[in-house]
């Protein structure tokens, strides 16, 4: 499955959940397919989508909160998997699009080919951690995890396919903050 196909499969499954996006390919692909007010596009601060999502989840316990992360981000902040497990917010769903490369900077390899991130999450203490390789597996896996007690982890293995012509997020960072906060009120 190509990375874009994973987004095309996943995004229509979303309702009004806040989604914190990792920088790079994740932000740009998601923004290009479907922009939402509930999307927080983290354009810099690589590695922090998971901790931002944890903060939102802890302070909005009545909302399901989704982190849409990448393998490079998860590897950079593996310690945050431990923090999420320790705080164990039951409303946090951590989805990772794993293409095994730093795609938006030119497909330099990450090391997630050698490190099964779903096993890392499970060992850290997530209540469930699931890996899917096929497009058809995304919907049933995501829906099951959304109806489970969190924190849960969904690893979607994809092939890189990013078109560098894919647009960048056009909202200013301040606009992203304002509308995301409004959607959380």
């Amino acid at each position, binding site marked *: 499955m190509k990375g874009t196909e994973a987004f095309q499969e996943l995004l229509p499954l979303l309702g009004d959940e806040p989604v914190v996006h990792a920088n790079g390919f994740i932000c740009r692909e998601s923004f290009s397919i479907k922009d939402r007010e509930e999307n927080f596009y983290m354009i810099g*601060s690589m590695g922090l989508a998971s901790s931002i999502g944890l903060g939102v989840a*802890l*302070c909005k316990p009545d909302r399901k909160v989704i982190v849409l992360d990448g393998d490079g981000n998860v590897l950079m902040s593996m310690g945050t998997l431990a923090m999420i497990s*320790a705080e164990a917010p039951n409303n946090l769903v951590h989805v990772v699009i794993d293409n095994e490369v730093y795609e938006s900077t030119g497909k330099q390899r990450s090391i997630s080919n050698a490190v099964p991130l779903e096993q890392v999450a499970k060992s850290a203490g997530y209540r469930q951690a699931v890996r899917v390789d096929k497009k058809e597996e995304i919907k049933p896996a995501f829906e099951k995890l959304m109806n489970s007690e969190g924190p849960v982890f969904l690893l979607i293995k994809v092939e890189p396919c990013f078109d560098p012509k894919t647009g960048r997020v056009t909202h200013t960072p301040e606009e992203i*903050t304002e509308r995301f906060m409004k959607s959380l009120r």
Partner: protein
Amino acid sequence: MALITSKSFIDRLIQENFKFFTGVPCSLLSGLISHLEEVEEAKYIPSVREDAAVGLCAGAYMAGSMPVLLMQNSGLGYCLNAFTSLNLIYRIPVLVIMSWRGQGGKDAPEHIIMGDINQKLLETAGMDYSVLKPENLDQVLETAKRKINEEKLPYTLIVEKGLFDERH
């Protein structure tokens, strides 16, 4: 001169509606963290790295809480990219309580350089701060609240050795 203790300072922050605390410990802040672990009105979440604490605070702020980040100045280096590419451009405020190890060049070797440059780093990044003293508490809290509520930017309170009790 009004006395300032770990308890009175934390209680004051809680009274000012700062109720979400996280960070990475420093001995100079140990009294604050001990008190935080005892109070019911506030939450203290141990972070594994200072930049993860910045992310956690950003999420908490956007979800309606007023976050406080406690860290040693050694954590400032880890946080600089988060401050410059998240907080400053997105206008996501946070109150930072940063201990000043290496002040005046008298400390363990690993603290000397950061102790010398921590204020210059904040200034270079365009981030406002004050050195907290018992006599300026009201004034710096007002300044911090203005920065946070009106400009929506981070504000740092620098804590010198001996300001708060240490527990170890």
